[in-house]
């Protein structure tokens, strides 16, 4: 039960705060609507940091889905790859908690750096309010996010089919 798949999709965010939850909403959708071959691991990462370290490792390809402030138009979907993720993201250790960039640094320091890593980011419109629903802008690009996630997985040799 503990040999786990090498491809991991991690959704990050807080589903209580509108568009903050986009990453988690997206991976839940993937989990509910699709099957994957070979099998992949789908992780609801919430807003945790260090708890995600076990999913990293030199044999892993990791797709992260999350709200990212690219300073672009709300609803913009964009990706960052490998070292560019760390280079582009603000080290969050100084703000909220041991965030994604810290996690990536720590994975390197503990010899758990992933073989391949892509951050699929979405520019949120609003995450100010306590609301389980995302904004219409983000709902409008939801399918685009899913299709891009499936495309990246396909590039990694993962076939998906609708349930």
């Amino acid at each position, binding site marked *: 039960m*503990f040999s786990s798949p090498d491809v991991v999709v991690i959704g990050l965010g*807080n589903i*209580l705060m509108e568009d903050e939850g986009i990453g988690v909403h997206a991976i839940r959708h993937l989990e509910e609507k699709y099957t994957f071959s070979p099998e992949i691991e789908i992780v*609801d990462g919430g807003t945790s940091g*260090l708890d995600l370290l*076990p999913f990293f490792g030199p044999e892993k390809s990791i797709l992260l889905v999350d709200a990212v402030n*690219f300073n672009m138009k709300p609803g913009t979907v964009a990706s960052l790859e490998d070292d560019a993720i760390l280079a582009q993201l603000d080290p969050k250790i100084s703000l*909220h*908690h041991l965030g994604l960039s810290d996690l990536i*640094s720590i994975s390197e320091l503990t010899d758990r750096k992933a073989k391949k890593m892509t951050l699929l980011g979405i520019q949120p419109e609003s995450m100010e309010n306590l609301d389980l629903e995302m904004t219409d802008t983000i709902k409008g690009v939801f399918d685009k996010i899913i299709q891009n996630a499936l495309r990246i997985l396909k590039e990694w040799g993962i076939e998906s089919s609708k349930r």
Partner: protein
Amino acid sequence: MTKRIVVDPVTRIEGHLRIDCDITDGKVSKAWSSGQMWRGIETILKGRDPRDAWVFTQRICGVCTTVHAIASVRAVENALDMEIPVNAQYIRNMVIAAHGIHDHIVHFYHLSALDWVDVVSALSADPKAASKLAQSLSDHPNNGWQEYKAVQDKLKTFVGSGQLGIFANGYWGHPAMKLPPEVNLIAAAHYLEAFEVQRKANQITSILGSKTPHIQNVAVGGVSNPINPDSQAALNMERLQLVKDLMDQLQSFIYNAYIVDVAVVASFYQDWLGYGSGVMDYLSVPDFPTDTKGTQFGTPGGYIPGGDVSKMKPITSFGDPYFRDGVKESVKHAWYEGDSNLHPYKGETEPHYTDFQDDGKYSWVKAPTFLGKPAQVGPLSNVLAMYAAGHETTQKVAGVAFAKIKAITKSKSDIPISVLHSTLGRHAARAIRCAVLFEELEKNYNYLINNIAGGDMTTFNPPVFPKGEQQGFGFHEAPRGVLSHWIVIKNGKIENYQAVVPSTWNAAPRNDDDAIGPYEASLMGNPIADEKKPLEVLRTIHSFDPCLACAIHLHDNKGKDVSKVNVL
């Protein structure tokens, strides 16, 4: 002359906290603690099914997921006056213990150690001398000089590649850093090892809780893990054996690294056993229930007024009215409507933001009180209560830690328990509590195995919601201290919900009587060597393990250079 310094945000904590201090003659003369985030989870729960509340409360914070699930189901069970199967208690207890061990270790090594340990200094240590020193301190297996050399090489490569990210904001070279290079190297080695250790503790949570970071196995009425020693789909012997194997790997690190390292830090920074006490009315609650009703507990808790352990009044059951009737929350100095001071059942969460007003409202955190006074919560409060109650492991481990400090400092007299009322005392208490948690993990594992062997596989009693109104509360001695959830149920739906979280107690602003909160009080009199680098403020605040509900975690694209961003 008085000068104001503002630390905003306080780094290496969970959440967003601002601390203001007035400095007079090099010492803190006035302090304000201000939570900079609004947490209004309560509003999202109104009208929902009480059985689902834990799923949402688990999302309040990215770090304290498990604890909010536990407190929530306990609150609903209390409202319905339920009993839950002992197997469910044991499984929950193991999840709580494993989570707590993980959390305490991460707090000391990854969030606080850099206040005391200078990683850059470790680069100039002599690995052989470090090994010799480490071997004189404990029997930890990874104490060979080759191991220390390897760690040093790794750090050199890491620092050399310009990746200081995770060590950023460490005040290396600060005059208040006192550890010799060899001690810094030992601590840095354990900093790295702690990543693996916390992962193992987490894996236990994940096996029993079905998933991490958000456990899936709790339910109002018990746990949803079916127990079947022979089934692949259930909690079986194979999984339980794996839990046992992981458990055994935690012990050496807790006893031979964590407790020893804290004692070493305390020995080199003895001054800090004298600063930072603050509010000495301590509140903790009993936990690790071993009966169906929650009247028998593995770890005691209670209220200690004025730091006098002989006056400890124990809290004795999940329904104890002494706790229930003692709690209130004031919004006089917090950014909510009005100046009410209400019991949590009546609690209101209507935001009303003003500017930062020294004498008015200045924080999103409400000010909770116990018996009308601010109370300090956390491992220190819990350890003092356990010590007062004669809890054997607490007394034994505290003795070991104090003996270490005595030996390292070559002190002639015994180290008194009163040193715990301090900044480093909070770290020492957390390490002691970590050993207590390990013991609870082992004990509950054995209880579970024996109970299953006796043929009891029950893990769940279904809840029944009567018509009309019920109210209940659930408490939990979480890694950061007393957590309580309060629920009012009307015709099977949530009518009101309030969570009084540990950091609310400690980070509280002034209360209804304008009495200062525990963070604020703990800073009074702290020396500040360099106003531009107020390391001392961080040391004292970090010792509480602040966690201000990081509901938001958005990543920022730091550079203006977007050339590497592929717009899709």
